[in-house]
């Protein structure tokens, strides 16, 4: 009698499981339907433009379109490398992007270490609230702030005057423009970048610090021998993963701050493609420059991912 119940129960359970697994297979169709709209958007707005890259090998004429424009092979690439200005554009991009990566990382690490020492809660919270803020503001907004501070009789020049320096034309000088771009980018994002490092610091075992103190290590030594080694994996990971950004000088920032006077030192690949390719309607040439950048970027991302996988056992994708 009792056994019957159990058997019956088991049978019902089995049936239910069977229908459940049947449902799971039927789910396949639903899954395809779910993912379809997104894939359609990807195909139109991400993959169709990739197909459009053939323009880089054509003498693209809008009236003829991509299917009827004449192919010219690598002519645009050859032309690109023959231009003296292109070397300057690539140098500017790498110097600016590299400077941003290095100084952003350094200041974010230092800030995180120092902030971690602050024991006054309200002060810590308020400073965090302030320094995270600029990261969320548009470069359109921040460029106005920067111009207000750094123009010939802005506040920065007022302060410099007290030290007998200046006035310096930060926005119009080829010596000062790159430091200005790197500096203001660090100003915008060091706070936000420090979040990850701060989290890494707080996850270090406090016992290690205690042990170091008992052994007579002072603050510097504890930072050097406990905190920094504890942060090292995340520092390495982020450094490796930031490498592909070496070709991203930051279009939004530079477009909003540069002018012909500082093209010499401040024109980057993206602003160049925009000006020459899109504004100048030299579509094929602009696409060729963009494609060159994208390919190097792809190689960098793939190698960064491999490196990250090898050294930190984590990866981007």
């Amino acid at each position: 009698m009792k056994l019957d119940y159990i058997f019956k129960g088991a049978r019902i359970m089995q049936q239910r499981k069977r229908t459940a697994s049947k449902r799971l297979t039927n789910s396949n169709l639903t899954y395809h339907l779910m993912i379809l709209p997104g894939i359609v958007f990807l195909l139109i707005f991400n993959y169709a433009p990739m197909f459009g890259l053939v323009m880089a090998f054509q003498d693209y004429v809008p009236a003829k379109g991509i299917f009827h424009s004449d192919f010219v092979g690598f002519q645009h690439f050859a032309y690109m490398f023959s231009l003296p200005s292109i070397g300057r554009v690539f140098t500017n991009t790498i110097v600016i992007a590299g400077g941003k990566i290095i100084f952003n990382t350094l200041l974010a690490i230092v800030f995180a270490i120092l902030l971690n020492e602050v024991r006054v809660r309200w002060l810590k919270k308020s400073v965090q609230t302030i320094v995270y803020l600029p990261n969320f503001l548009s470069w359109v907004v921040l460029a106005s702030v920067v111009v207000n501070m750094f123009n010939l009789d802005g506040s920065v020049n007022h302060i410099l005057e007290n030290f007998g320096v200046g006035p310096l034309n930060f926005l119009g000088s080829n010596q000062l423009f790159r430091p200005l771009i790197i500096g203001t980018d660090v100003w915008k994002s060091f706070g936000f970048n420090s979040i990850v490092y701060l989290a890494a610091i707080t996850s270090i075992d406090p016992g290690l610090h205690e042990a170091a103190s008992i052994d007579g290590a002072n603050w510097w030594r504890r930072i050097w021998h406990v905190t920094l080694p504890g942060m090292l994996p995340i520092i390495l990971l982020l450094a490796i993963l930031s490498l592909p950004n070496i070709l991203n000088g930051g279009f939004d920032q530079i477009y909003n701050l540069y002018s012909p006077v500082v093209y010499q030192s401040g024109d980057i690949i993206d602003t160049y493609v925009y000006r020459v390719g899109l504004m100048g309607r030299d579509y094929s040439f602009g696409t060729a420059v963009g494609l060159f950048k994208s390919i190097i970027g792809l190689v960098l991302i793939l190698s960064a991912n491999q490196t990250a996988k090898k050294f930190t056992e984590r990866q981007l994708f």
Partner: protein
Amino acid sequence: MNLQNKSLSAKIGKALIYLIIIFLGLVTLLPLLNIVAISLSSSGAVTANAVGIIPVNFTLEPYKMLVDDPQFWRSFGISVQRVFLSLGLNMILIILMAYPLSKRKSEFKGRSIYMNLLIFAMLFNGGMIPTYLVVRNLGLLNTIWSLVLPSAVPVFSVILIMNFFRGVPKALEEAAIIDGATPMQVLLRVYLPISIPSLATVALFSIVGSWNDFFSGLIYMTRTSNYPLMTYIQSLTVDIQQMIQQGINSTNLSELMGVSDRNLNAAKIVVSSIPLILIYPLLQKYFITGIVVGSVKE
């Protein structure tokens, strides 16, 4: 003696740390306050460069003038509309893509094809000009859709939510399926309610991204009347900046531009940032937890 020395130097070191932290906080805050102060000062004071972080000859005149600027509010409206359209479309597509992709290969045949399509789209793109031509050929120029559709699928967010869905205990889903739920019901009734914080994170990515973007407006809109807010503000300030950069100082500048322009522009900047300031507490809560969870997790 030695001990006392030690505690003294420790105190000095501590004080130094507090000073640096406060200094960095002020260096970040003061330039922002400066813009707010300029927007609340009389044009005379602004022209004389007398405004620091406190308004000089306090006036609301710039804001009154701003109220009467029809293009500003038109652009503001376009930006608001764009944020909501983008947010809606992004969230629907993120959720609908992330759920099937969170299934194992055995549960969802074809998953790896979709996944590869997605990842490759993240690593490589056609670039500025081919994308522009696609949008133009679709006849989207000068429509709000040119601002919304090209960024309809935020790949990074899809992957973030996919990873979150993968962490949802299988037992929950199995229980729902045994009770007869369809995949759509499982997604809506099981997955969504427990993913609210992660979904909030990607929703905020979307809002901040579309509000701050001026570039789409710059290339896809040929008429100023169609500009979203950031593009409109950018178009106003760019002329002034070029003058400043070419060495004209702001005293001449204000004469050139008509006296009130600098504080009026500052007012525009301030008002355009208000929506972000309003959601900033949310941003702090979700962005930051999202970032920490996403990157420090072992």
